[in-house]
């Protein structure tokens, strides 16, 4: 007879946490899958653009607007030296040759009419509007976190890290995504600065289990060593 505890122990030990070849194989598999996902998204985008182009061309062809659409496309992909706000000026002399170059047989037999005056140029210039200054953007809490993380782990500057953790905590609030980690790391920054009483006060909620099991054992050991 085998009791449940022994079976539980066997299951735990049979699949213990250890480095294995599966780790490397799994990583390669993940790399392939992530790469495939990117390629798939790129293909979707290309297919979408191609479908849009075909749709617009078909519509323009059936409604007789193909030359105008072609001219618009040509204007869009025109060389960058051309000024962008040409459409506000008088009709460019290249407009007629552009149409002619797209469908020369269609317009060769017809007398060339002067192009209609561009509608946009007839419109009065827009009045400059005074917009109220936009409200200041909310703080980028992720950027604040990265800044604190860099000061704490990369530069190993506890004073800068402490200030940065405080800034993150002020911006993220009590329900921030990494508030728990930030509080714990802030306590460690205090400890490294030799501010033992403040560090102990910051660690005590962790040791009391106010944040569940998160870092509870570590915090308990630290608090005991700070008494």
């Amino acid at each position, binding site marked *: 007879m085998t009791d449940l505890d022994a*079976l539980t122990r066997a299951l735990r030990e049979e*699949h213990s946490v250890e480095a294995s070849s599966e780790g490397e194989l*799994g990583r390669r598999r993940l790399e392939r899958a992530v790469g495939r996902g990117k390629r798939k998204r790129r293909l979707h985008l290309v297919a979408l653009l191609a479908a849009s182009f075909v749709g617009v061309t078909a519509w323009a062809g059936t409604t007789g607007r193909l030359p105008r659409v072609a001219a618009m496309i040509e204007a869009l992909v025109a060389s960058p030296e051309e000024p962008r706000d040409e459409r506000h000026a008088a009709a460019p002399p290249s407009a007629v040759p552009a149409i002619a170059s797209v469908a020369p047989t269609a317009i060769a037999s017809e007398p060339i009419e002067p192009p209609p005056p561009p509608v946009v140029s007839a419109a009065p210039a827009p009045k400059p509007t005074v917009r109220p200054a936009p409200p200041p953007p909310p703080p980028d809490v992720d950027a604040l*976190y990265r800044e604190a993380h860099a000061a704490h*782990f990369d530069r190993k500057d506890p004073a800068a890290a402490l200030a940065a953790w405080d800034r993150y905590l002020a911006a993220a609030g009590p329900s921030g995504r990494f508030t728990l980690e930030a509080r714990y790391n802030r306590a460690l920054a205090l400890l490294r600065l030799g501010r033992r009483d403040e560090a102990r006060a910051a660690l005590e909620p962790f040791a009391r289990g106010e944040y569940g099991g998160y*870092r509870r054992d*570590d915090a308990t050991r630290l608090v005991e060593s700070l008494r």
Partner: protein
Amino acid sequence: MDDAVASERGPDACVRAARGERDALFELYEAHHAHVRAFARRLVGDEALAEDLVHDVFLALPKALESFRGECSVRSYIVSVAAKRAQRWIRTAARRRAMESRFSREPISGPSLPDESAQRREMAEILSRALDTLPVDQRVAFVLCEVEERTSTEVGAMLGEKAATIRARVKLAKTKLREALAKDGGAS
């Protein structure tokens, strides 16, 4: 003391992985795959299917991290993602085991293992088969609390449940497991 002073390094990678940075995803993989794999094997009881689950978890991780609010450590969060996505693999593994036991009452074990290892593997397989009789939520609670030795408070935070709910699930799971094992004639 040194262990205690080791800070949380994971969150930075979480932020970057949630933004879709590949390198950050692989940092998280390197840091946590062994624990996630061990959990997946314990939960599913089938190494190949557990491997599929690990793959699925890390593929889904960037999206899952968008809703990470620091309720638990990064590692526990990734394990909780595995727990929440495991149902499909648990079912497949249970079907596979049921089919195996239909053809043979003897568990299929690896070739010529030392006695101790063979016995441990056999015992693990017995428990995996018994776990197949449980609903998924009880199975997850049992594996996290009893096999992985996490507290009910921690598991509650991971799964978004009350600690009392987790304790009740574990208690029910143990009762059912004892019944299943007694019926199977393998354990008390």
